[in-house]
């Protein structure tokens, strides 16, 4: 992993972690990125705790240290506990997570590990658990989180570890 940052952060800091990151170097996209990221947490279809579990499963797989360390306050307020977070590991299917949570994580794993290999069983499970709007919401959230975390890792400068920190969704 690139331990040294490959690009500089913008000189002007705004207090928004997205705009103040290296992504701020591309003004043509950073505002839309920030608005999309914020909107994922206020969507009409999937609870913040489930969104956060999907985000953390992705962060764990991509090994984005920043992403893994964050807990969004809206997710904690929605009931996401550290016990649940501990279960977002390999073997989550055998954990005490709910069927809805496990299905959201199974969808995440299909996206991350084998998007061509969605089995008939997973397809049936998804359709039995979520409606079209919920699946689409999970899809957009996961795609955005995956793009963000891969961006962070690709740009280098990732510490080896960070403590867990609770933050608010950037405005």
């Amino acid at each position: 992993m690139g331990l040294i940052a490959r690009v500089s952060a913008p000189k002007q800091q705004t207090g928004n972690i997205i705009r103040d990151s290296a992504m701020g170097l591309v003004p043509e996209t950073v505002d839309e990125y920030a608005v999309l990221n914020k909107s994922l947490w206020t969507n009409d279809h999937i609870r913040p705790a489930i969104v956060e579990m999907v985000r953390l499963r992705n962060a764990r797989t991509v090994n984005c240290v920043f992403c893994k360390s964050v807990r969004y306050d809206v997710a904690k307020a929605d009931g996401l506990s550290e016990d649940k977070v501990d279960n977002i590991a390999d073997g989550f299917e055998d954990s005490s997570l709910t069927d809805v949570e496990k299905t959201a994580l199974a969808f995440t794993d299909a996206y991350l590990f084998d998007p061509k290999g969605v089995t008939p069983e997973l397809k049936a499970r998804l359709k039995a658990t979520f409606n079209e709007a919920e699946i689409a919401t999970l899809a957009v959230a996961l795609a955005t989180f995956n793009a963000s975390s891969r961006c962070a890792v690709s740009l280098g400068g990732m510490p080896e570890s960070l403590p867990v920190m609770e933050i608010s969704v950037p405005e």
Partner: protein
Amino acid sequence: MGTVTSFNLDANLTPAGGIATMFAELSAKFWEQPHIPAEQIELCRLALAVMHKATAEQAERHPAAKALSPAKADAVLGERWRGSDLFSPGEKALLNFTEYYFMDPQSIPDEVAAEVVGHYQEKGLVCLVEALGFIDSRIRLALIYSTLTA
């Protein structure tokens, strides 16, 4: 619905509401930005399509990249770009980075990233990783929806 690609994916995401619109609009921005020409972003999209073995995706051509020569597209699709003299050093730097990105962003060597910065500056590298993120994610979702909608 037939086979889904990154080009017709958004119709499947529409039920999500506003975030689907935002996702589509942001994805489109990477084809209009001033840091890396659309034809070179298209080379990276084709390379990702090859690595995903996304056959229908490989058959598509992005309308923003009309100036891309078919010979270059064919060389990427045939995985012959590395030894080809059709490509500029900058294009080869982008494609080399894309291959590492696909395998695992943690595996990207510093010198491979530095090569991109050397040709496209720091803004170009940031733009590239953002664009790869959205293109790769759209191909992944397209592959999933191809099964979900079959």
